[in-house]
């Protein structure tokens, strides 16, 4: 019923779009901007597949209206360049891969906020990123490995 101009930076590049009020960030990213690395899973903020960083904080893109990121810096997995990615490969941090981009964006936010995060802090932080293959040990190892690579 109303349309809104939304301007933000996406992985460092400026975005300037006009969207209806009800447009979700996850749909803006995937459908309008074709950044499909961000996945849409449970759609109620529980599974973590759609984790993106907004001004550094890991958030669920399925729970944000696109208007809520106006004026912010958004990072998605397409903009990620981190030792985490090598570490996930090295440690077998993924199986089917559907949760991987969310796991990476959450873990990257943690290591930026807390480069010396303990294993317990890693487990607590990643609690909201579900792996349907239950490959949690590999994910936890990968994040711990990336931590020591920094």
């Amino acid at each position: 019923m109303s349309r809104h101009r939304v301007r933000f930076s996406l992985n460092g590049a400026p975005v300037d779009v006009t969207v209806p009020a009800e447009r979700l960030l996850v749909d803006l990213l995937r459908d309008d901007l074709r950044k499909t690395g961000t996945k849409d899973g449970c759609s109620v903020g529980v599974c973590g597949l759609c984790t993106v960083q907004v001004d550094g904080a890991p958030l669920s893109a399925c729970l944000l209206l696109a208007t809520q990121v106006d004026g912010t810096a958004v990072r998605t997995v397409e903009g990620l360049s981190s030792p985490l990615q090598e570490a996930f490969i090295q440690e077998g941090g993924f199986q089917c891969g559907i949760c991987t981009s969310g796991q990476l964006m959450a873990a990257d936010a943690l290591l930026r906020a807390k480069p010396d995060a303990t294993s317990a802090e890693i487990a607590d932080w990643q609690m909201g990123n579900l792996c349907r293959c239950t490959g949690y040990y590999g994910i936890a190892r990968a994040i711990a490995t990336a931590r020591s690579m920094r």
Partner: protein
Amino acid sequence: MRPFEYREPDTLDEALALLGEDTEDTLVMAGGTSLVILMKQELIRPARVIGLRRLAQLRAIDATGAVGGLRLGALATHGALARSDAVRTHAPALAATFAAVATVRIREQATIGGSLAHADPAQDPPVTLLALDGVAVAMSKDRARRIPLEGLFVDVFETSLEPDELLVRVELPPLPAGSRVTYKKFLPTTLDDYATVSVAAVVATDDAGACTHARIALGGAGPVPLRARDAERSLLGRRLDDAAVREAAALAAAATDPMSDLRGSAEYKRAMAGVWTARALREVA
């Protein structure tokens, strides 16, 4: 999601003016974690949504000087409150309450004001804030009023806020000297779930060990977060020994009015309210 008109006021005055207009089918959005889900599921279909994200002054978290109270802006996120030195100084258990809500993503988006105005009885922060004698401050275009939290919660998802009122902050009075505070949630399935029941307890004792101040608040135990007043009264003037704890726990369980749902039957939740009240009281005794 049904289309709606979205407004994003730049100032509090502008927000209150918008709320003072025809308020039918208008809803306020703070962080949006609950509102967006309810709109996606079309459980609510507002014609107009007023987003508060530009009202930066409502994010403030302040200690109220030497007396030791707190003023918590309605838009302070759970994450900001969990990290706040002022909150930790007032009561580490209050910071821990915010730190234990759902997952990091929810905590970075959800706000204290949104949590209270949403009035879901299974949420965590309202329970601890109730035990800390929290008062909501609501403003409209032409008035402001203070609402002790017990008077804010009316029913499931229902508060005493008027359609033209905005919850702008929560105030906590200084705690009695030597107060001990805890918040415990019973999570039989996963750590990011809503609690089956939860308990916040605040006690203070005199030099002889007699209880001089007691607050017991329960979450998930009725249509609203509730105070177990009979249980509180039973503790006053007594040593917090095993008999006192057991008696208070039984009275707390009797004060509950739980709903049966996926997290347990009403009978089970009532029993667990007693068990977790006892655990909370033993921790602060």
